[in-house]
């Protein structure tokens, strides 16, 4: 096994265990891993942005293809940095105005088309299907395209919209619709919660799988050694901290 793979196994195991120590309490090992994470992530983002923006979007088109129009976004981007010059702070507004203006302009028709009209179109569907020339009502719940599900979708969407509609008082039929909307919302929140829990569990299983793999002799059993080191480290930290904490409690 190559040295870099072996070192990688030990480093990955150590960092994984350091993060897991947070389950006991916030401690120096976790903070070390946490700050390493932030530092590496930001460094990685900077390198990737440099490669994508500076090299591929600016340098190569300008120098190799002679596309000097890119000086315009470059100048607008530089204006953003004017925030650091007290007397020229106002110039950064020009850059923000451009970004916000373009973003708002692009958003309006696309949001109306994709997120309003298309969603309504997909919700308001025929209440019966034509099968061999005669209208048929399909009841299958397992088929998302069945007529019964189309009605449930319509009721759910309209009732949730009623719940968020505060321009009229929720009384009488509106109250019934709003309360139905709450039930639909609760089901959706429960489903979202369950889905998120399972996604996190999947990540956890991934990390534990790595720890099990790194407990093999071919890696030098880093999971076992580093788990012992981490536990000893936590015990020593707790013992060292306790005498300092007691006087302040009194």
């Amino acid at each position, binding site marked *: 096994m190559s040295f870099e793979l072996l070192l990688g196994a030990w480093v990955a195991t150590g960092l994984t265990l350091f993060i897991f120590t947070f389950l006991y309490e916030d401690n120096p090992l976790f903070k070390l891993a946490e700050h390493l994470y932030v*530092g590496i992530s930001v460094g990685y983002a900077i390198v990737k942005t440099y490669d994508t923006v500076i090299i591929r979007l600016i340098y190569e088109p300008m120098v190799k293809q002679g596309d000097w129009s890119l000086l315009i976004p470059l100048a607008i981007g530089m204006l953003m940095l004017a925030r650091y010059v007290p007397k020229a702070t*106002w110039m950064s507004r020009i850059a923000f105005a451009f970004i916000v203006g373009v*973003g708002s302009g692009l958003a309006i*028709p696309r949001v109306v088309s994709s997120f309003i009209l298309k969603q309504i179109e997909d919700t308001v569907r025929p209440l019966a299907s034509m099968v061999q020339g005669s209208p048929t009502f399909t009841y299958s719940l397992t088929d998302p395209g069945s007529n019964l599900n189309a009605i449930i979708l319509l009721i759910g969407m309209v009732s949730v919209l009623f719940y968020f509609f505060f321009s009229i008082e929720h009384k009488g039929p509106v109250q019934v619709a709003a309360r139905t909307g709450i039930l639909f919302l609760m*089901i959706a929140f429960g489903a979202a919660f369950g889905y998120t829990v399972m996604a996190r569990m999947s990540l956890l299983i*991934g*990390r534990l799988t790595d720890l099990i793999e790194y407990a093999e002799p071919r890696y030098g059993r880093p999971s076992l050694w580093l788990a012992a080191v981490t536990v000893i480290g936590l015990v020593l930290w707790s013992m060292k901290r306790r005498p300092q904490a007691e006087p302040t409690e009194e």
Partner: protein
Amino acid sequence: MIFFRRQLPLLITLVTGIVFAAQYYVPHPASEEMLTTVTKWLQIIGGFALVLGVTSLFHIHAVKIRRKEPGWGYSFVLYAAMLGTIAIGLWLEGKETINGTMTAFGWIYNFMMVPLQGTMFAILAFFIASAAYRSFRARSREAAVLLIAAIIVMMGRVPLGEYLVPISGDITQWILNVLNASVRRAILIGVSLGAVALSLKIIFGVERAYLGGGKE
């Protein structure tokens, strides 16, 4: 001077907003090319926004190190990790593999960033479980509905759940594809209406918070 400081940004927002809203309705190659160009421009400008964020992070931790505030050593670790990653990444031109061989930058990604990121999100599983224990007690009818939906979806997403209750997989799919979809659509429509209203307010200068405070 007030024109450049206050009115020019509003004018730029108005013009760009109207032009790019209208662009959608002009199916001409020139219009499409304008959209492609400005999308590229926004990516370039976005890169400078990263500079703003990173500078702020640099400043906060530099102050901590200079004043030797509690935990300044961690700020030093953050600096070292960030500068080390940048130096190695730039040296290797951002490549994680060269001819199929992992580079030092790829090593940092695979053996440091991925485990750290994965574990950081994985520990949320424990906190979510603890939060669920505290908040999921069925105190009302609505809470009971939420609890039941969550349990069904959790059971339907694992083989053991489907083994114990064979129908849980189908019910989970129904909840996700029908009930959850209807709510998502309603929320999406509401959020979209809000986004359109906000965009119009920005374009016509009613909403000016993005310009920030400070001197006129």
